[in-house]
């Protein structure tokens, strides 16, 4: 559905050239939910804007929905839907009018557009507000309308830029349901997010992007397996640096990082490592605030690939 080779985009600024996307290779399959995970400024939105014909790439090649992006953007546009972060509806226009307008722009007859708009209003549960100006919509309603606008022409591929940023937890869960429903209808979804939970819960495959480059690619489980073993988190209040130093040299610790009074230790087997950790701390007389054993999360993957926590980077 999407294939890119060495896709790049650089912007010229006063300070020189900034490479926002530094050679991205992707292969998104039909029918999958593909997630682009990374901190703000990593190049997610720039990549998305290139793939959705909004921004010409500086170099590289891409095929989107069966057409060459660089030479046949007009054809690509008929096959894709795009839901931007900023929203897409005019405040003073009623939701239903926006949907009908969108359908008409893809060449639908008025009758067909009205019918399709009614279907979407029904499916997205917008019946209560559809005929009011969109400025009266709640955040969740507005985002659902945006998705409706993106789906009016039944695209094969839908781009969602940060679909749940700024939504409350309930609306977010609701949005996840809508995205899963899309998959059931055979629509391919390409979304960006800086929420680990979102990528983990929703996506079939994830590419982690940092500084314009893909640093890891795979299913959430594959990515987590790259961080082999378990993660032991030791809470030691203000002795973090000292504990890090002490434990880093231990043979059972593969990698260790610290921050906010927590030391994260990557170990092969948590249950054998934990007594040894306790023994080291006890011998040094360092009091223990907390101790937990975790399976690796996507944050651990990010941390391992970039040396930073996604939460700090975002």
């Amino acid at each position: 559905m999407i294939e890119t080779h060495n896709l790049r985009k650089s912007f010229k600024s006063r300070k020189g050239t900034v490479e926002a996307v530094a050679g991205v290779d992707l292969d998104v399959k039909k029918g999958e939910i593909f997630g682009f995970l990374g901190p703000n400024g990593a190049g997610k939105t720039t990549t998305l804007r290139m793939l959705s014909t909004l921004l010409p790439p500086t170099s590289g090649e891409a095929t989107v929905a069966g057409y060459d992006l660089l030479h046949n953007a007009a054809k690509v546009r008929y096959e894709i839907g795009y839901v931007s972060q900023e929203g897409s509806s005019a405040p003073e226009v009623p939701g239903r009018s926006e949907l009908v307008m969108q359908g008409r722009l893809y060449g639908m007859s008025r009758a067909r557009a009205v019918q399709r708009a009614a279907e979407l209003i029904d499916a997205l549960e917008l019946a209560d507000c559809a005929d009011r100006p969109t400025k009266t919509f709640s955040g969740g309603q507005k985002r659902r309308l945006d998705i409706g606008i993106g789906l009016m022409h039944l695209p094969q591929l839908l781009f969602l830029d940060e679909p749940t940023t700024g939504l409350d937890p309930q609306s977010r869960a609701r949005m996840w349901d809508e995205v899963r429903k899309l998959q059931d209808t055979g629509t391919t979804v390409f979304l960006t997010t800086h929420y680990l939970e979102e990528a983990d819960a929703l996506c079939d495959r994830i590419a982690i992007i940092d500084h314009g480059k893909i640093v890891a690619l795979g299913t959430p489980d594959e990515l987590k397996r790259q961080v082999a073993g378990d993660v032991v988190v030791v809470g030691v209040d203000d002795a973090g640096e000292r504990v890090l130093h002490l434990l880093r040299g231990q043979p059972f610790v593969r990698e260790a990082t610290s921050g906010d009074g927590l030391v994260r230790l990557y170990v092969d087997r948590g249950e054998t490592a934990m007594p040894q950790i306790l023994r080291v701390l006890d011998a040094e007389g360092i009091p223990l605030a907390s101790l937990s054993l975790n399976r690796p999360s996507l944050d651990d993957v990010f941390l391992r690939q970039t040396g930073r926590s996604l939460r700090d980077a975002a």
Partner: protein
Amino acid sequence: MKMLRDTWLMFQRYLMVFLRNPAWVVIGVLQPVLYLVLFAPLLKSLTETPGFPSGGAYNVFVPGLLIQLGLFGASGVGFGLIAELRAGVIERFRVTPVSRFALLLGRALRDILTLVVQSLILLLLAIPFGLQPTVSGVFVMLGLVALIGLGMSSLAYAAALALKSEDSYAPLIFTLSLPLLLLSGVLLPLQLAPQWLQHIAQANPLSYAVTAARDVFNGHGADPDVFKGLAIMAALAVVGVMIGARRFSRAIA
């Protein structure tokens, strides 16, 4: 064909948006009406001054006032576009296969329609003061206003797309529209101006529109200046549309 259909769709959309707030038609006419009521009477005593065009104060002033309406009305249209950019509407349209030309033209046609309606209101309001319009004069006048509307609103859209923020757009249009107005002879005929000022005014395309508008209202409808004014405004419209359309199509073609 697709371009025409898309233009029609865009025109309908923006007309609908506009009609949800019809007060703007009146607000747009308010400023010229103030000139009509509070400024034009000052000219009455000047009509005897050597060099003041013949035809009476209102037949001289109102045609220029309509040109001013066109200039100010069209240069403010970028504010709406900036609001739409911020709401993500323009980006949404650019992802669709809609004709890029229609994105500009649909809006500009709405602006032209608004200006023509406002011009007619102003002409009607000016009659009790002493304006004596002719049918041909009104048609040529509306043609001039429409061409200015098309050219200037296209340029205003291009500027709005380039600047993307009211904070830089507002100073730009105020800085540019004031000299355009002063050098057009709208307020006082340029015949009264010293030579050097008349020379500078020749570089202002709007001064030709004002001359043409005055000629056609005062029995010189067949004067070459009328055709010159129309031709220069048509050229302005073509250039404006080309620049505006280029800006609207700056995604991958």
